[in-house]
């Protein structure tokens, strides 16, 4: 008994320290807990009827989402799943797609890297304010890049000259994912100069995510795929989950995570439930609030820590969902979206392509869909 207390006290203090270190800004709307009468969806989603504020608005939004077609006739939106109060209440697929189909994350995978890092922070294997310490920077003790921390990387404020660019074939991201550096993506991401003091400038960078992914691989202890399965995908019951690897064995979290729409919703539920899953603390206390709090760089408005926040965007950031929706989101190219909305205890997953639709239309339609659901008690 004494031994258990001896072990429990340092662990509790460590968790308190992590929680205090993370919660340096007030959270927005509190994260709603899982209802006792609704099981976590580890072995399958509890289903129910949607409790709606506006039935017509839901059908209008879904109709619009499933109407944009590419020139070859395929629908842009391939899957929409809505979770309300922990229950699956809407699930629609375009023809040719179903609950078993895996969908590509593009940058929504960056939020999965957030979860991996969070797990390592929980276990004391990574500290938020420790140097990122890429091996390419270790030869010179005075290398200014050694001031970059894990927190800077999560918040995309490293100051490194590895921003994605416009996404075209000449962009940094294209070179990283498909060019000469794609075989060892972290090397390509690290081998750049510092152009801003760390923490002072926000710049979206798949390369930075790959630096974090390599840190995860290095600290996971053993096969990174086993770590991912043991710590995240298996506890959540994400049976479809696959993280592609580069040739060096680094998970391509910056772009190439695959999962079914239901499994993307499981990941969303983990965040909406403050990192708790069936009584188990998957993400450390305070991690989700830290992740959904915009970084303080002057040119950042809506980026947290590898999660987007529905807040006024910075000058180089896309507008978010309609103002007043208190969402935080996993976002990826071609309209991949997992939006967690605490005030409505809601998760909206939209997956597919954007051959015929643009971000503005997509976001308007998703906003309409969210607003069809009522606020939970006390929310304003």
């Amino acid at each position: 008994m004494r031994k258990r207390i001896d072990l429990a006290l340092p662990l509790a203090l460590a968790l308190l320290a992590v929680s205090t270190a993370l919660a340096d800004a007030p959270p927005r709307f509190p994260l709603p807990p899982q209802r006792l009468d609704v099981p976590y969806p580890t072995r399958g989603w509890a289903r129910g009827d949607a409790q709606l504020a506006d039935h017509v608005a839901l059908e209008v939004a879904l109709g619009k989402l499933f109407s944009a077609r590419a020139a070859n006739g395929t629908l842009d939106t391939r899957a929409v799943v809505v979770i309300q109060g922990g229950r699956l209440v809407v699930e629609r697929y375009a023809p040719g797609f179903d609950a078993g189909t895996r969908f590509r994350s593009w940058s929504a995978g960056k939020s999965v890297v957030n979860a991996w890092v969070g797990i390592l922070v929980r276990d004391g294997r990574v500290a938020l304010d420790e140097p990122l310490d890429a091996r390419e920077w270790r030869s010179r003790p005075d290398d200014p890049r050694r001031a970059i921390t894990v927190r800077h990387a999560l918040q995309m404020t490293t100051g490194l000259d590895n921003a994605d660019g416009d996404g075209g074939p000449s962009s940094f991201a294209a070179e990283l994912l498909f060019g000469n550096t794609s075989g060892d993506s972290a090397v390509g991401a690290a081998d750049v100069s510092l152009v801003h003091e760390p923490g002072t400038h926000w710049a979206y960078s798949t390369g930075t995510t790959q630096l974090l992914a390599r840190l995860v691989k290095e600290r996971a202890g053993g096969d990174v795929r086993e770590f991912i399965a043991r710590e995240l995908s298996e506890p959540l019951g994400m049976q479809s989950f696959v993280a592609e690897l580069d040739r060096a064995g680094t998970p391509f979290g910056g772009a190439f995570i695959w999962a079914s729409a239901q499994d993307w919703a499981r990941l969303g539920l983990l965040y909406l439930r403050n990192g708790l899953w069936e009584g188990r603390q998957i993400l450390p206390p305070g991690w989700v609030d830290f992740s959904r709090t915009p970084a303080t760089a002057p040119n950042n408005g809506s980026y947290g820590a590898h999660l987007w926040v529905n807040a006024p965007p910075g000058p180089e950031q896309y507008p978010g969902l309609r103002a007043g929706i208190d969402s935080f989101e996993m976002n990826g190219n071609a309209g991949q979206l997992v939006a967690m909305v605490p005030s409505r205890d809601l998760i909206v997953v939209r997956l597919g392509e954007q051959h015929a639709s643009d971000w503005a239309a997509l976001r308007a339609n998703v906003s309409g869909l969210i607003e069809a659901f009522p606020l939970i008690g006390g929310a304003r």
Partner: protein
Amino acid sequence: MTKWIIGFVVWLVLVLVFGIAMPRLNEITGIGAAYVAKEVCSCMTLGGRDYAACRADLPQDMNFDRIQSEPLPNGAGVHAWVPYFAERTALAEPGRGCTLQAESPMH
């Protein structure tokens, strides 16, 4: 004298084309071929869709129709190429999705 000037200009143009433009063109077409190989391979292997559907889902505003590709036998991967410029192959491997192979010289 005029012949020498014309010769110099032709030489200069050739140097510029083969010394600057060609490597850049090779690089860009290489990235395009890699994109097609990787995305179509992953779409088939992990997305569970057929080759034609995956190929049709490539972005339609980036000239991917100029990049040729073919699936490798038995779902082993996808090979993509731009004739005379670049070729890349993505191989499907259990547990790690599709991996772009190191670039090899055109053959």
